């Protein structure tokens, strides 16, 4: 039996390949820009610089893991609805998982923030990485706040009636009514999680593009992400950031 190895001209690969006449198309330009900014070996590296061998670098990925559990449990809660999470034992368990994963998310994010602040992690053209992290943190506070308002218990009533005065004092109460349960639920399960996930995704891509910030003792110009060569990547990747 012989196998025909000649390329199939009708296959999608043969039409998607780079052709000189297609260089001006926006798809080709976008593809080239994306690959140039984040080549696969940088997007998903096998090793990290030796200086990331410290527990303080673990808290970024711990925050990501907690966020994944928050989103997953939130999706399950949205599928089955309020009666399920209030009344059935499984629903109460998933509701608790949702709450405690949020606690872990904020706990690890704050430790991550302190670590990066004292490393001055905005050094070496990493300002955008720092700013996306800060904005993601602030939006996460809003996402958690609307979550507390959506608990449907006395705690959420207390929080909303206390918060309305503060929000109204800023003038934002005209469009953001903390006593409007439907609006708060929509912000909590749709708008704010979408923004948080997009910002966190951008933050991670920027970490991959610029590399993990080196300690002060290592010159920035020899650190990962600044020069293509980077320092010796000697620590097997354990997804630290």
């Amino acid at each position, binding site marked *: 039996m012989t196998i025909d190895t000649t390329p199939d001209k009708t296959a999608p690969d043969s039409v998607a390949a780079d052709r000189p006449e297609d260089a001006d198309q926006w798809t080709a330009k976008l593809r080239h820009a994306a690959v140039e900014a984040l080549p696969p070996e940088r997007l998903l590296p096998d090793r990290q610089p*030796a200086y990331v*061998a*410290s*527990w*303080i670098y*673990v*808290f970024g990925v711990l925050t990501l893991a907690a966020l994944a559990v928050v989103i997953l449990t939130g999706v399950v809660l949205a599928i089955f609805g309020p009666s399920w999470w209030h009344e059935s034992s499984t629903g109460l368990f998933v509701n608790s998982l949702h709450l405690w994963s949020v606690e872990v998310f904020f*706990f690890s994010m*704050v*430790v991550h923030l*302190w*670590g990066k602040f004292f490393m001055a992690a905005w050094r070496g053209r990493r300002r955008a990485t720092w700013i996306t992290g800060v904005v993601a943190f602030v939006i996460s506070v809003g996402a958690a706040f609307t979550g507390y308002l959506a608990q449907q218990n006395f705690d959420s009533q207390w929080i909303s009636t206390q918060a309305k005065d503060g929000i109204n004092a800023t003038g934002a109460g005209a469009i953001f009514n903390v006593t409007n349960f439907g609006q708060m639920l929509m912000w909590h399960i749709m708008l704010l999680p979408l923004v948080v996930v997009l910002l966190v995704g951008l933050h991670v891509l920027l970490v991959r593009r610029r590399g993990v910030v080196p300690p002060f003792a290592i010159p920035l110009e020899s650190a990962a992400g600044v020069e293509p060569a980077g320092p*010796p990547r*000697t*620590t*097997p990747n354990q997804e630290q950031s």
Partner: protein
Amino acid sequence: MQMLGAAAMSLLGSLVNLDGPGRYVHWGFIQISVANLVVIGLMLLVFVAAILIPFRRHRGDDQ
């Protein structure tokens, strides 16, 4: 198994009495719940530990 779970929950519940108003610390104009203060203390503890405790390195890794 359910008995064990109930016993564990009862033991955990007896450590902190949650059946009542929360306790707060007042310091001038600063007012914070004991629960939040404990969490902040734990974060500081974990932060210091993360810096001080050595990270396990794989054999053969260069420095």
